[in-house]
């Protein structure tokens, strides 16, 4: 059993490494068109970290010099004086201008800009594009992955719930794997941080956010090349939900603790000069807590992807026989660490959310204790 697991793990990791290596090899071969190898690798890594408007797995350079992209286009939805829906195949991976109802759009660094018919991009003195950006509501690669994860979670956990109803509280199949995790979140994360009385209210969110982040982190390690939790918009949305839940479900004592942290232990004349400093800090704290949540998850996943991709890029920097085994070995080791980090980050996000919910649901007798 352990052996099969190890072999599967080895196979999955080597698949991940080889796929990325294959893709970057193709990119590196284009070094002839003026750019040096390091810029090429850097651009490839940057491209991987961004969300994209098509689901392309890798590209093959054909004999006539054209690139053939393996993958499929995704719908582009723009709001630009009316709803514009078209397929991202019109962009030809950023090589051509898409014409929709008399407007011209061009992909530039994975963002859509409005251009003229020739597709000119104007720059300011810092080399940032100054073209108008339409409101982009597209189903991008990341959004597709989120949909897939949602469907997977919905199917998985509703079928597990049904199997419990049928078998009388005995886990079956994959439920044997997930039951300890769910119980751990309930007993060691929710109950120990929020308390016996109010933990039930927060359980759906904690379980959902844990499995959502974990699954998306794990998808980020597959050869699909998605980087959803390394996208600051996704982590910001998750942190905003934590922020809203914390403050909307906060008890009277939570708000009293914010605006009157010292309580009755001091006469109000003595509290006044302290509160000029204390209350702004407490209010800032409300916003800093979810902000640190979003930065932590985003930066960890982003950094992990950069490290793995850079180690693979070493292969093309060394240009000798030592490069391949070295970069394979390092990328393999880092990939294993990344599997741990994927779980750890999901755990920490859930844990800290529960901690904040615990602050929000403190009762008066608890507040007096410290």
């Amino acid at each position: 059993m352990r052996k099969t697991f190890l072999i599967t793990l080895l196979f999955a990791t080597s698949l991940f490494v080889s796929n990325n290596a294959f893709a970057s090899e193709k990119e590196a071969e284009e070094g002839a068109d003026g750019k040096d190898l390091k810029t090429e690798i850097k651009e490839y890594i940057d491209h991987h970290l961004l969300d994209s408007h098509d689901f392309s797995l890798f590209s093959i350079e054909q004999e006539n010099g054209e690139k053939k992209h393996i993958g499929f286009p995704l719908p582009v939805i723009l709001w630009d004086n009316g709803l514009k829906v078209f397929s991202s195949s019109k962009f030809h991976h950023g090589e051509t201008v898409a014409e929709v109802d008399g407007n011209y759009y061009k992909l530039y660094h994975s963002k859509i800009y409005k251009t003229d018919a020739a597709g000119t991009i104007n720059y300011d003195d810092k080399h940032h594009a100054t073209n108008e950006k339409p409101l982009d509501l597209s189903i991008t690669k990341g959004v597709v992955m989120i949909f897939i994860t949602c469907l997977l979670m919905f199917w998985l956990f509703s079928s597990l719930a049904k199997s419990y109803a049928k078998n009388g509280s005995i886990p079956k199949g994959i439920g044997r794997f997930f039951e300890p995790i769910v119980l751990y979140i309930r007993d060691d994360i929710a109950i120990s941080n929020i308390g016996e009385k109010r933990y039930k209210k927060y359980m759906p969110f904690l379980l959902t956010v844990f499995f959502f982040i974990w699954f998306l982190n794990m998808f980020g390690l597959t050869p699909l090349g998605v980087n959803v939790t390394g996208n600051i918009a996704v982590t910001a949305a998750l942190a905003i939900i934590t922020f809203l839940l914390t403050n909307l479900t906060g008890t009277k004592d939570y708000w009293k603790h914010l605006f009157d942290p010292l309580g009755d232990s001091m006469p109000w004349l003595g509290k006044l000069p302290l509160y000029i400093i204390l209350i702004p800090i407490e209010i800032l704290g409300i916003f800093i807590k979810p902000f640190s949540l979003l930065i932590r998850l985003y930066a960890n996943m982003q950094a992990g992807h950069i490290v793995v991709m850079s180690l693979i890029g070493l292969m093309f920097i060394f240009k000798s026989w030592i490069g391949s085994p070295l970069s394979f070995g390092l990328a393999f080791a880092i990939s294993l660490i990344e599997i741990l980090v994927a779980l750890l980050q999901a755990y920490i996000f859930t844990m800290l959310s529960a901690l904040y919910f615990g602050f929000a649901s403190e009762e008066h007798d608890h507040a007096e204790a410290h």
Partner: protein
Amino acid sequence: MSIPRIVGAGLIVIGVGVGIGRIGGQAMEAIARQPEAYGKIQTAMLIAAALIEGIGFAALFATTEIEG
């Protein structure tokens, strides 16, 4: 990336490394002293490490990402 930024990023990494290293070391000592409290110590260690890591990442982004 200019030199002050690189030096700043290095300093941040040193600070975070020392901080998390101390947390890990002290947690090891605590576990050695009281092996039965392993679970609780590990949880507390992870939370503290995560908080430092969050600040460290925020500072790293401030040195490397913000233009100007």
